[in-house]
Each structure stands twice: as C-alpha cells, then as structure tokens.
C-alpha cells in the first residue's frame, strides 16, 4: 500500500487564499496526477460537497471530498497552505492550515480503496497525526505518515 499516497500527492506552501482557490488547485492537481480526467467535473463535485455542509474540521484541518464518475482511481491529496485560509468555515472557527482531499470514483468500483479513504479521514481524529502533519516540511514524511496510519 506504500504507493497509495506518494510524495507527489503532497504539496506544501500552497498559495491559495480562499476556499474556492484551494478547491480549484486540488481539482487541477488531481488531473495532473492522472487520478481524474475532467478538471471541471472534479471541481464541481468538490463544490457540491461543500454546499451540503462545510468539510472544515477542527485544529486547522479540512477534508474536502469529491465523488464523480470523472475520477478513475480513489486517491488522497494532501496540501498545506502558505497562509491559513480564513473563509473556510470550520467546526472550531479556526482558519484552515491543511487539507486532506479525498477523491472518490462513482459507483461500486474499488471498494477496497474507498475503505482506505475512510481510514485517512479517521486519522484526522488523532492528535499526534495532526501535529506531525502541521510541523513536517517534507512531502515524503507526510506521505509516509498517511500510509502508516492507514496500514494498521
């Protein structure tokens, strides 16, 4: 499972200043990495999910997710922002410093990988995981943190 989240899936010093920019960046990146084909469709799926209720969590994390038939493989993208994003509504009112984005293919394909995405979400509940992600400056390290977390 080492290949599920690689260092290419992690981006640091993301210049996005608003939620909209952050989501656009994630959709663009998903296409660059070959996870999805249609950038517009992925962005719309992200926005549709935010419209149902914010994905901003606590302690500066958000967990945007998109489910679309434009997505071929289940994937996780991690990004840390150069400046915290203030307009991303969160459960504790704190600005968002990092996002863990989940990309979900439509239909029943890839059940196994979908379960992995759920494990990534659960990781966010762990304080030590959150602290390490926020302090780390190495994409490799963050990728391996996520991989290690979903293995057990």
């Amino acid at each position, binding site marked *: 499972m080492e290949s599920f989240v690689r260092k290419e899936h992690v981006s640091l010093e993301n210049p996005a200043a608003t939620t909209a920019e952050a989501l656009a960046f994630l959709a663009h990146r998903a296409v660059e990495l070959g996870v999805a084909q249609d950038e517009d469709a992925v962005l719309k799926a992200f926005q549709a*999910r935010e419209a*149902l*209720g*914010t*994905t901003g*969590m*606590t302690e500066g994390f958000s*967990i945007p*997710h998109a*489910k679309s038939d434009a997505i071929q493989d289940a994937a996780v993208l991690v990004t840390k922002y150069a400046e915290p994003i203030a307009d991303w509504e969160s*459960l504790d009112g704190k600005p968002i410093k990092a996002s863990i984005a*989940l990309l*979900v293919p439509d*239909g*029943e*394909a*890839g*059940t*196994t990988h*979908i*379960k992995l*995405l*759920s*494990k990534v*979400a*659960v990781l*966010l*509940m762990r304080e030590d995981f959150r602290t390490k992600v926020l302090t780390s400056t190495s994409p490799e390290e963050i990728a391996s943190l996520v991989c290690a977390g979903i293995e057990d």
Partner: protein
Amino acid sequence: MSYDIVAATGCPTGIAHTFMAKEALIQAAKEKGLTIKVETHGQVGVEDELSAAEIRAAKAVVIAADKDVQAERFAGKPMVSVGVSKCLSQEAAAALIDRALAAKPQGELSDEVANASDAAGTSEKESVGHVIYKHLMNGVSHMLPFVVAGGVLTAVSFLWGIFSFDSTNAQYNTFAAMLKYIGGIGMNLMVPILAAYIAESIAKRPGLVPGFIAGMIAIQGLPVLAETGMIDPSGTGTGFGFLGGIVGGFLAGYCVLLLEKVFAKLPENLNGLKAIFLYPLCSTFIVGLAMLAISGPMVSINEAMMGFLGGLAQGNNAILLGIAIGCMCAFDMGGPVNKAAYVTGTALMGADVAAGITDGSGTAIMAAVSAACIVPPLVTTVAGVIGKKYFTNDDYNACLVNFILGCTHITEGTIPFVAKNIWPVMPIMMLSSSIGAVGSLLLGVHDPAPHGGFLVLPVVTNPIQWVLAILAGAVVGGILLMLFKKHEYEKNGNKAV
C-alpha cells in the same frame, strides 16, 4: 455480545464523516469504560449492522447522521439524534453519549426489537429453526403491503362486475379495467417480493437479484417440454405459487453465501467486480437452472392433479370430491395444485354453460371450488375478530382487509399467514376449505361464474346455502387459527408474534 451503547452514523458521501464520527464515539465510549457498537452507513453500504437483539440490549442509542439510518428501529430506546458534524470530536461524542443515557425513551419498542430473543444477544449462535423463521418473516413482512394494495384494487374493480376488465364484455368499464390491471401487477409482485426479501435476509443486498428472479420464475413458471426438461419456446409456464417463491428465496440467499465463500480467494481489488458482476451473474444462473429443473415436475404435478380431480368429478362421492377440492385449493394458493382445481372447475363449468345446463356437475364443482377459494381469507378475518390481541397490529389489519379479499374470491390474501407458519396454518386452511366445498356440493349449489366471490351471488343457485357452507368453513378454521395464535402468544410471554 451485547453493548452498552449502540450508534448509527452516516453522511451524504459516506467516505469521511461517517467514519470519523464512528471513531469519535468509540474513543469516547472507551474513555467512559462503556462498550459500544457503531453501524456505519457509508459508500460501501451498511457495515457492522445492528441486530434487533443488540438494539434491545443496549442502554442507549446515539444517531449521528445526515441521511436516513432507519431510526424507526430505535423507537422506545433512550436516544439522541444529531447531524454527523456534531459528533466529530471525542468531547462532542462523549457529551452525546451522556445525553443519550439520560434521555427519556419516546414511543414504544418496534415489534422486531421487542421480540428479539435475549438468547441472540448473549450467544452468537441462533437455533436453525429461528434463523429460518427470521428469513421467512423478512419476506412476509415486505410482501404484506403488496397483498393489501393489489388485492383491494382488484376487489374494488369487481364492483363494476367481474368481467368489467374485458373490453369485449357488456360489463366493460375503463376505470374498473385500470384498477384490475394495476391491482393485478401488485398481486403478481407478491411472490417475487417474498422470494427477494427472504434472500436479502440471508445474503444482504447481493441476495436481491437472484431472489427477485427466482420469485418471478416462481410466479410465472418456465415453459418446459415434459419430455426433455428443456425450455419450450412455444409453451407457457406453470407457476409454482408462493411455496415455489419460498424455496426460490432460500435457494437464492444460500447460493449467494456459497458464492461469497467460493470467491473469497479472489484478490481484494476485484471486490467491486464481485458485487456488480460476479454475484448477480453466477447466482442468477445457478438459481435459474435450479428453478428450471423444478419446472418439469411442476407441470407433471399440475396435469396429474387435473386428471385426478377430473376422475373424481365423474363419480358420485360428493364428500370425497369436496375434500379433494378443498385441500387442493388451500394447499398452494396459485401454485400447480390450486390451479389444477381452479382450471378443472372452470373447464367443467364452461362446458355446462355452453351446453345450456344450469344444474349439472360442472357448475356444482365450480361452486365448490369458489367456496374453497373464498374460505381461507375469511378464516383469518374470523380469527382476527375473535382473538385480536393474539395478532400483531399489522397482521390484525391484514385480517380485516382479508374480509374484502375473501368476499371477492382473492385467496392470495391468506398467503402471508400461511407463509409465516406453514404448519399448522396450511392444514387448518385445507380443512376449512374442505368444509366449504363439501357443504357447497351437498347443499346443491351451482355457480355459472368463474370468479367474483359473493358479487356473483345473484346468478348462483341456492345462494344462501352457499354462503352458509362458506361461513361454516370460515368459523371452524377461524377458531382453530385463533387457538394456534393464542398458543404462540402465550409461548412468547403474552406478546403477539
């Protein structure tokens, strides 16, 4: 295993929040030294599903969901229900558990939860009989509304006359015809629903596909050539009735369980392919073949019974003939045995009517067949009226609806009662129908109409005697059925089952 807390979580996408809320609840419960089981309604379906026994045993219920998690199951338990975003930290989850434990229960426990055996809560192993009954009941409870909807619409259409659906008949009425066709589709779905939800109870969602298909085959039958046992493209099938539906449902459910074992060795990344391709394809093929194998014998049974009844009809022994008609009509309600009696009755009646004979054996046998078909629903009505408290609410209401269905010759209303307890309800029905049929023959009743129940009374010879014979059967059967339900009620700690 029983738990202090049971919980259900769910969110629209079913990927992140559902499982984060679960994690928060588990951590919070652990901190408090409580045991917990969390059912998740996620993208891949329902996982860690709560059983009725677990719900019954739990001290409190927490729901954290933004989608339907069938909360009606939890009625009558101390409960708190919030959106999933209110349960995403350990502190929030701990507060929810406290609130749930302190909450006052609202409403009454659902029947299923109240009746869940404690044994199931304390040991994982349920008795085979109970497991089979549980699967059967899942099918029956899903079927019941179809019987009511389809049966009553059909019955109402008869108010315009029993031939009102037939555009070549003087009684034809477009509205009545519409009611009858819509109602007929509802009734035709009964057996497929029964089979599908028996299979669903056994094998969860993958069971539905082979279950529905087995049920459709059971209601329509497969056209087979008796000599070869293979499909005869120009033939018509003989349905197997609800008994075939029950067999097909169990076959479908266990077939999927078997396939799950067989395919367990396949690599995990083929899981998606299994659910959407391998299970439906393989299970349908296997169950279809099995149903095909039963089809040949079904045709033979049907033909043999018609020959048998035709032979009896030549003789002069009214009692023997009446018992045969009664037992056949009440045996499988729409299956090959029932159809043999009904088809024989209508054929002999048709020959009499065509020849202008009004008091021949054909119309007498038709009257006996109709009496035998009218009795079973009325048996449930009598039993329900004299023993209301021995029936669950749903069943009691079905008893009352069966009055309408019985009076209009719609025997199918009885199927849920028989399917639930083939023994002893089927023999009770066979006895009651026999009383009705024998009475009808002995009292010299003649019926020149093939269907319609009491709505055809104006054209029946000796109509009062006919009604009396039917009532005699209904009362005897009603008392026996009530006694059986009373026994069940007492066995279950004075609670209706």
